[in-house]
């Protein structure tokens, strides 16, 4: 589905990413995990051409990006990011309609699709007529997901999609999205700095540091004793936190 071959990106003479090789298969849910400045967002944006690599090749479904104008490629890829970027001058329905409109769908089909998508992201139908400013943070991010899915992409790119939400909403939305990923047979690449989120949602975690891949494997494999100390420390954190929470809960129960 996605192939990054030896890609590099420089910002102001400094290498931000690469040289980096990454292949994502059809149907995979891959988390790009790392601290801020590790190059995970840049890597994600090189997939849909929002950032052009300075070296190397990006292939989507076997076709090198650059073979067509980048906006054509982006219309086939869903894109969700933390700030959401709902268009404030358009209603929810109009926001969702943008992608299908760009893809040249007719009006009845778009209207039907809006109803379908609101249902899919578990929003009541009357949200359609509202302006984004009248929605809660969680509702907005659900609309963001619906908008990204509207034109029926096979590939979804998500940049810290749930980062700005409260923990309860974040958990609910994450699980809902994982279910959608299964149901719609999507391929998803998600950027996150949250180890727990990566562990619970992804099939495969790619740990990045200073623009290079530090580890790449299924969550269980990374949780098992990893040779690299940074990865080990990274994976240890949620476990330690979980143990502490368990201990607190147990203490509370006995106390």
């Amino acid at each position: 589905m996605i192939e990054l071959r030896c890609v590099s990106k420089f910002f102001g003479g400094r290498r931000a990413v690469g040289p980096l090789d990454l292949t994502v298969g059809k149907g995979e849910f891959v988390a790009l995990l790392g601290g801020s400045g590790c190059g995970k967002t840049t890597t994600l944006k090189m997939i849909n051409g929002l950032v052009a690599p300075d070296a190397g090749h990006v292939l989507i479904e076997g076709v090198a990006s650059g073979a067509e104008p980048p906006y054509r490629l982006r219309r086939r890829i869903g894109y969700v990011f933390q700030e959401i970027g709902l268009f404030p001058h358009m209603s929810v329905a109009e926001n969702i309609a943008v992608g299908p409109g760009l893809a040249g769908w007719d009006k009845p089909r778009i209207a039907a699709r809006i109803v379908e998508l609101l249902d899919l992201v578990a929003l009541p139908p009357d949200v359609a007529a509202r302006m984004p400013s009248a929605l809660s943070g969680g509702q907005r991010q659900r609309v963001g997901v619906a908008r990204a899915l509207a034109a029926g992409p096979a590939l979804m790119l998500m940049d810290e999609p749930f980062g700005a939400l409260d923990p309860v909403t974040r958990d609910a939305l994450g699980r809902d999205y994982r279910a959608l990923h299964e149901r719609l047979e999507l391929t998803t690449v998600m950027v996150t700095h949250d180890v727990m989120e990566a562990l619970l949602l992804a099939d495969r975690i790619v740990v990045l540091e200073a623009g290079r891949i530090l580890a790449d494997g299924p969550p269980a494999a990374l949780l098992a004793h990893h040779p690299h100390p940074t990865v080990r420390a990274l994976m240890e954190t949620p476990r330690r936190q979980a143990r502490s929470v368990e201990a607190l809960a147990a203490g509370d129960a006995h106390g």
Partner: protein
Amino acid sequence: MDERFAAAWGLLPVYLSQHVLLSLTALFLGFAISLPLAVAAGRSAAVRWPSLFAASLIQTIPSLALLALFYPLLLALSALSVAWFGRGFAALGFLPSVMALTLYSMLPILRNGVAGILGVDPAAVEAARGMGMTDVQRLMRVELPLAAPVVMAGARTAAVWTIGAATLSTPVGQTSLGNYIFSGLQTENWVYVLFGCAAAAVLALSADQLLGLIESGLARRSRWRVWTGALGIVVGAVAALSPLVAAPSGASYVVGAKNFSEQYILAELIASRIKAGGARVTRKEDLGSATAYRALAAGEIDVYVDYSGTLWTNVMQEKNNPGRWEVLSGLKKGLMRRDGVLVLGPLGFENAYALAMRADRAKALAVSSVADLAAHAGSLTLGSDLEFLSRPEWAALQRAYELNFRKETAYQPTFMYRALEDGEVDVISAFSSDGRISANHLLVLADPRGALPPYDAVILISPRRARDRRLIAALAPLLGAIPVQAMRAANLSVDRDRNKLTPAAAAAMLARLAKPAPAE
């Protein structure tokens, strides 16, 4: 009071329609240029700083000067156009006004356009790119709609500035609401001045409110507001412009006038003669002295009254003074040869530049001529009109009498007389046909050395109309028919403080006072 108000009201359709046409065209052009420029500037800092700098620079040029500068520029371009394509264009009136006002309207639209586009939420821009919008789609569907309220706020400022500055297009020959203000200022008709200011203010405020409705409609995404505002502008513009459509088209004579009372009165007199002959007349008033002659030579006005000494020194560049009749016959030949301009003949009075003092003050100093004055000049202040100090006549006077005043100050003619009366200045550059000379008890100082040339008022006709028998026949009865006393009385009737006449009424009075044309 009532009569002047009624006269002002009667002129409103013509002045307002011209004013609206001018402002609307300038704003439309300003918007059409500034908005794409703002988009380019929003994209690239290399466009942003130079364009904003240039627009700010233009804004620092006084608007009247900006308007005035376009006249010589267009005149030169027109001459080039004649040389290259065999056709020129009018360098006076609408064209220079609309160009200057367009430039003037650009800064607020440009500045707000850049701010609006740069102020669009980066997340919305990234979403637009991420979803696969092209650059143009992103601009049209996301950036411009989101920047629209800020852009409209700029357009609002531009509209108010442009409508205000359009009143200054009167001196370059474009009719506007400024005609009330300029002619009112010259004839001390404060009803006219106030009427012009009020009309321009009402127009600017209406435009501001309607554009404000569109702006708030865009900000609140209320279609109702946007459409009401737009409809209001369209209805207002159509109503204001309707007199232009209703006016009959076709050839008409353009009568010019410089910017003082006598010129307005004579222009009215000439206009009424032409109308009596069955032809139509349009006006270009408040022209500068040099502008008027060049406009005539270029055919932008057909007829106006100038003064032989002015033409002799300024146009013919003559420095000597051979005497009244030699100057007149020299002009007749010289102007025809030089520009094809016909000197139809003198009206019968002189309006000479002369130095004048209050009679009591002259007596106290024992001054009766410029020669006497020279000895006292070092302790006296000269008040002049706006152009006298830069005219060759002043240089000639200084040379002939070695005049060196303590201080020289230029005024609007109206305020010059006031300054003399109040003792702010001791000597003024007066006009010998001015009614205020006798009314204010002034003494005109003699010019024993003949430094100043004669100033016979003469009718000039443009090259295009030089063989126009109908025009010549209509104006011939005025030649030699206006004695200086009649002109002074007419001038005073317009310039005095009480019981003022409009220039048109003064022209009617002058027609009655004029000597019957000598039988041929």
